């Protein structure tokens, strides 16, 4: 029988227990990293609904596959990047990543949306955390129609993985910001396509005291001319539901009264902002128009409650002598107003025919001021009978409670 001194035994036991604890506490953390990333955001602009009339059309619920690998029958089995459950986009894309952590439904209204991927950084002060980082270079991109259920794409039945929307390649440059739109190109033939836009707002010298907005009309060819019973799914857009003409002028007016037009900002009524041309083919970035953040002379330079009204009018028309009534929905594509007011869900008091969007000016608690108004950079896109707003904001001082 080995005779060991008591203290020596104690030491051995103690050190073995400590060793065990250390061994259990170690774990290796791997951080994902992409070298030379490009920043991509994907929206599904197929905003038609399936009804009795178009019962046999594909439901606009998509899967995006970047650099997929196909098996011998042409069915995708794997992809480098997958954006699954891509649903029709929502009217407002806020400047912060609003879909992270919202787990009520499996549907994703944009990519990255809810997906757990590397997010974009802060470029020139602009918070790009709603954009995903993907490796730059040439990529093959495939959009597939998929059934509306929560089964991940690669686990679906083989016969459900045949429906391709588009299969093409795109080239992404490093450190550039891209927005990719899945669009309907032709309303009559139902032909779909994609539209990749390289944003430039992070490269322009934009002032903090001006609110910037640019416009795109990505409607399908033949939408305006189609009969109105094919456009019943756009009823909530007011006079915009029937579409607008291919060339329109944009007028803007600013108001300070909430939900009415009784408090106009003098000097900013019915001013011409720019032109809007229908274009869903040629890639070009529209110029940014602007108006002052504190246009209201009575504001204190910290907070302003002004909201914006846009009047899209056919060339030759002017909102000052508008032949249409304020409640009229049938304007033959000559006039479509948009109110950018509060949260975008309430209408003007009275029977208004405008489409609703949230206010372009972001009012939020920052520093000691609650709330404080910040200027933003906005993109307004008109797709068939709906209007969408995407807002990007510079990083601002955190609130002090």
């Amino acid at each position, binding site marked *: 029988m080995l005779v060991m001194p008591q203290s020596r035994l104690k030491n051995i036991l103690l050190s073995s227990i400590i060793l*065990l604890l250390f061994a259990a506490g170690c774990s290796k953390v791997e951080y994902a990293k992409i070298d030379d990333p490009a920043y991509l955001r994907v929206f599904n602009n197929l905003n038609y609904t399936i009804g009795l009339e178009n019962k046999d059309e594909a439901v606009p619920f998509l899967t995006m596959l970047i650099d997929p690998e196909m098996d011998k029958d042409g069915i995708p089995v794997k992809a480098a990047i997958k954006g699954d459950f891509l649903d029709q986009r929502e009217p407002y894309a806020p400047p912060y990543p609003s879909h992270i952590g919202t787990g009520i439904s499996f549907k994703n209204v944009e990519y990255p949306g809810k997906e757990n991927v590397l997010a974009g950084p802060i470029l020139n002060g602009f918070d790009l955390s709603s954009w995903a980082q993907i490796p730059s270079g040439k990529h093959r991109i495939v959009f597939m129609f998929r059934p*509306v259920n929560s089964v991940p794409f690669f686990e679906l039945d083989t016969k459900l993985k045949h429906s391709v929307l588009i299969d093409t390649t795109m080239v992404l440059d490093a450190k550039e910001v891209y927005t990719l739109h899945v669009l309907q190109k032709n309303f009559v033939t139902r032909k779909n396509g994609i539209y990749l836009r390289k944003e430039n707002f992070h490269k322009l010298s934009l002032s903090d005291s001006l609110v910037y907005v640019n416009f795109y009309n990505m409607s399908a060819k033949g939408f305006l001319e189609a009969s109105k019973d094919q456009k019943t799914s756009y009823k909530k857009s007011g006079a915009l539901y029937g579409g607008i003409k291919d060339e329109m002028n944009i007028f803007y007016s600013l108001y300070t009264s909430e939900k009415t037009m009784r408090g106009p900002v003098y000097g900013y009524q019915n001013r011409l902002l720019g032109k809007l041309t229908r274009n869903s083919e040629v890639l070009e970035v529209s110029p940014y128009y602007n108006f002052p953040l504190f246009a209201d002379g009575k504001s204190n330079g910290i907070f302003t409650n002004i909201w914006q009204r846009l009047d899209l009018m056919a060339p030759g028309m002017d909102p000052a002598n508008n032949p249409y009534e304020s409640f009229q929905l049938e304007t033959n594509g000559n006039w479509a107003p948009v109110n950018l007011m509060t949260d975008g869900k309430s209408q003007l008091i009275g029977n208004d025919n405008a489409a609703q969007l949230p206010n372009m000016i972001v009012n939020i608690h920052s520093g000691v001021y609650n709330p404080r108004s910040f200027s933003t950079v906005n993109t307004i896109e008109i797709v068939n009978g709906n209007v969408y707003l995407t807002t990007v904001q510079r990083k601002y001082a955190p609130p002090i409670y």
Partner: protein
Amino acid sequence: MNTRKSIKKLLLLIPVLLLLFNSCKHEDLEIVKENENFRLASDFIKNNYDMTLFYAAIEKAGMTAQLQGPGPFTVLVPNNLAFQQIGISRPSDFDKMNQDSLKSLVQRHILNYRLLTRDIPVNGVDIRYLTLAGDELYTSSSNFNPKGLANYQFDLYFNGAAVVKEDVNLANGTLHVLNKVMKYTPKSTVQDWLAKRPQYSVFVSGLKKFGLWDKLATAGPFTVFAPQNKVFEASNITEASITALNAKDYNGKRLFGGYVMDKKHFFISDFFVFRFINDETTFIRKVDNDDWLMIMNSASDFYTKLNTLDLNLRTPVDFYTNYNSIQASIPGLSDNLTDNGLVHDVQGLLLLPEQALINNSPNN
């Protein structure tokens, strides 16, 4: 003294060993006991008082042994009421049917994989499922209204037949009870289907007279509402009187074209499905190649879930005139599926010949 020391050393080791053992994870092994109350498909159908006619059909088709097999099967069983609608009220009535078509009828109601209602996409329309007969079913499910209240309902249709009892557990699969027999005539067109049935001969002669017959053999798809001869005879229209009409005096696109919908593939249940999932309480569409409108409203019986359809023609002007409203209200005669479309029997006439005269009506 030595043993006491060694015991003490052992006791010191016990807490260390306890720590080690507690950190081990034990996986709970639960052995699932199979429920002895579930029966095989053939046994279940045989013992069910409402499925006696389907069991007789299975027997006559010689498929009882197959349905006792390991499966898994999904059996869509039309209940006895469904068979009575197509004129079968006793097992001996099956002997009058062609035995091959009886076998394919039974096979069309059996899937060789397990399909539970939770596997069917929510609000899905025309989802295809393969049956033992080799053809595919059109499955539509109406579950929630995206524009309406957040309530959830469950209405499932296979080829226009509603499921009245779903997800019945069997030892070798699952079973759903339908309220109609799914009727499909393989390798035939709408034209063949109408030509083979002498009770539609007046309707066929009308289609031929106004040049609408030939297209019914093309790809389509077509949805045809067909009135039987007795409906025409009630208004004194016979084949002879149709042949005697001068085709140029009458607007054939409305008189007979109103019954044919081109490029549409509708079961009667589809109208009810879209009523819920898309708020389409009424379906209004233009008559093909004409400017008159056809209005369609559907309804569903609360207890039997049988669907009926009301249709009528309407003039296109603001102060419109609604013409005769007719119904597709006999479920046993609707949803006749062929390869290029469907035929539904209607019990009325959309327009009388006098109402379709070209010079008479101010809307022509």
